[in-house]
């Protein structure tokens, strides 16, 4: 086996993967390394989402591949299959790869002689997902982090104009403006930094940046964020980099199984999964 790992919080993985489901049929690419798992979903040239699941999030993680395995799998199928396991007790779910036919194997054994198992067929993939970055662009980068619930609500409301959504981040006055101008009318939602800095976890902008994004892809970045993220309100971070590349990042807290963890604080270091979206600006706007 190139990978054999045990996960005690299956619901956390289900939540992370559900956050990047914006269509019914989606193929995901799974990359396995000594550092953990990365699951990538892409609408080529428009939107890419990545779920990072570091090895520290597993109860055990044994990696022994010579080169990093990469395989394709149906995202919906992976989520539905994992959901089958998340209802059962608190014992660990074992994931291993590859099976005899290159399947992804899952197995969970309960104390009372019950075993649930799954074999998911994987696909060979030649696609190498593009590596996007919003860093190192010589200063024209703007970053802000707001409470996830507020961001989600704003983007949900912006469905109404039925148009592309412009995001403007300016240093003076400091704040963020989301605006849609469509057939039904215009809607603008302001996040002024000084007046409402309780909403902000971070704000950094040296010069104004403004780009437009297709609504359906912008909405995909928050529509399926799990309730735990909006309740925790850790903040979702948005960065606009060179050429208008937008990065939206959410942190999903993962609680350990109850018998392992008496500490009710879910934000302990290492128990967080990262979900990142990369959005290309709308060329038509």
């Amino acid at each position, binding site marked *: 086996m190139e990978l054999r790992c045990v996960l005690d919080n299956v619901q956390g993985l289900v939540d992370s993967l559900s956050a990047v489901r914006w269509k019914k049929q989606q193929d995901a690419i799974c990359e396995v390394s000594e550092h953990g798992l990365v699951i990538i979903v892409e609408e080529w040239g428009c939107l890419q989402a990545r779920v990072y699941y570091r090895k520290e999030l597993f109860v055990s993680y044994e990696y022994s591949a010579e080169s990093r395995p990469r395989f394709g799998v*149906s995202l919906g*199928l992976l989520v*539905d*299959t994992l*959901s*089958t396991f998340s*209802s*059962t007790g608190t014992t660990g779910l074992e994931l291993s790869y590859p099976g005899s036919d290159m399947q992804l194997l899952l197995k969970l054994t309960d104390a009372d*002689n*019950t*075993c*649930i*198992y*799954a*074999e*998911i*067929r994987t696909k060979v993939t030649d696609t190498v997902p593009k590596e996007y970055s919003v860093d190192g662009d010589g200063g024209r980068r703007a970053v802000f982090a707001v409470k996830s619930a507020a961001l989600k609500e704003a983007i949900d409301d912006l469905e109404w104009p039925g148009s592309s959504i412009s995001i403007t981040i300016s240093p003076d006055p400091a704040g963020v403006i989301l605006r849609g101008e469509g057939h039904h009318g215009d809607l603008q939602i302001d996040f002024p930094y000084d007046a409402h800095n309780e909403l902000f976890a971070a704000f950094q902008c040296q010069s104004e940046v403004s780009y437009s994004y297709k609504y359906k892809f912008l909405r995909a970045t928050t529509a399926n964020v799990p309730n735990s993220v909006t309740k925790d309100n850790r903040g979702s971070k948005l960065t606009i980099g060179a050429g208008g590349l937008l990065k939206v990042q959410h942190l999903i807290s993962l609680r350990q199984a109850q018998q392992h963890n008496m500490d009710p604080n879910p934000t302990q270091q290492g128990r967080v999964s990262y979900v990142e979206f990369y959005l290309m600006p709308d060329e038509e706007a």
Partner: protein
Amino acid sequence: MKFKAFFTDKGVTTLEKKFVPAFEKIGKTCYVYLTRTHVTLMHNAVNADGVQAIAQFKEALLFDDYRISSQNEDRIAFTLDLNLLLRALKSSVSMDGDKLQIKLVKKRPSLNERPMPYLTLESKGFRSAVVQDIPISQPLSRGDVQELQDTIDAVHNLPRTLVQMPDLGQLQILVDRLKNVGEALDVAVTFHGDVHLQVSTTLVSIGSEFRRLQVLGERAAAGSTLDATASPAMRLEQALARGEASSVQVKIKHFAKSLQCSLTRPDTCYVGVAPSDSYLVMKFQFYAPATHHPDTAVTLHYRLPVLERVG
């Protein structure tokens, strides 16, 4: 034909709280089959392309002063809408009257129409009486009644091995999730007391193995064991190869419906494969009060039609 009886309190509770709600989950209407000694509720008794469910009660469990007569050896059968029966029973309970009488009558719904059959429930309280008429089908012919009787007789011909079912609540959660994956469910039972459930499509197989459950009937020989270190699928193959297991495929929606049997609150549930892999059979037992012995006054069986395997 004539039928008249008074419900016992236990009879009302058994039907209103347990069996009628469970049977409603399988279908809207069902057969009611009355004989001199037994009262039977039946689903899909004749054309078993759905879940076939048969709940048989000794008349003394449900009724006092039970009177039945017909030209067909005092056997009467008809169909009725379970929701109407349930509502009538519920409102009779809220009446808290003296006695609840049930009888078969013929009435004209209006002056212009011809008389139609009804099951009438009459509840007499201290100050008022409530009469509820449940419309029923025309009584079944002699031939159709015999078919119902033949179905009941066949159902008592049980598989040679029955294995205790895993916890129904746990199964319901699992099967609800498996329904998202595929439509056909492989069910296998082994003489070692294992139950296997699996849904497979071209892209995924998900299964569950429940081990070391109680076995009724034929069981594995002492000393015969399966490889504990093998995967569940390999363990099942081993048992099948030795002739110590049976495996059939049923519609997962049928299996999910039959798990609603939990509403009858059985004390034990067993599953097995009928001879020639013709049906998947579930047998439920209800203990006599304050004992751990099955109450012979009530029996419940479900039969699920088996799908032909493709490939």
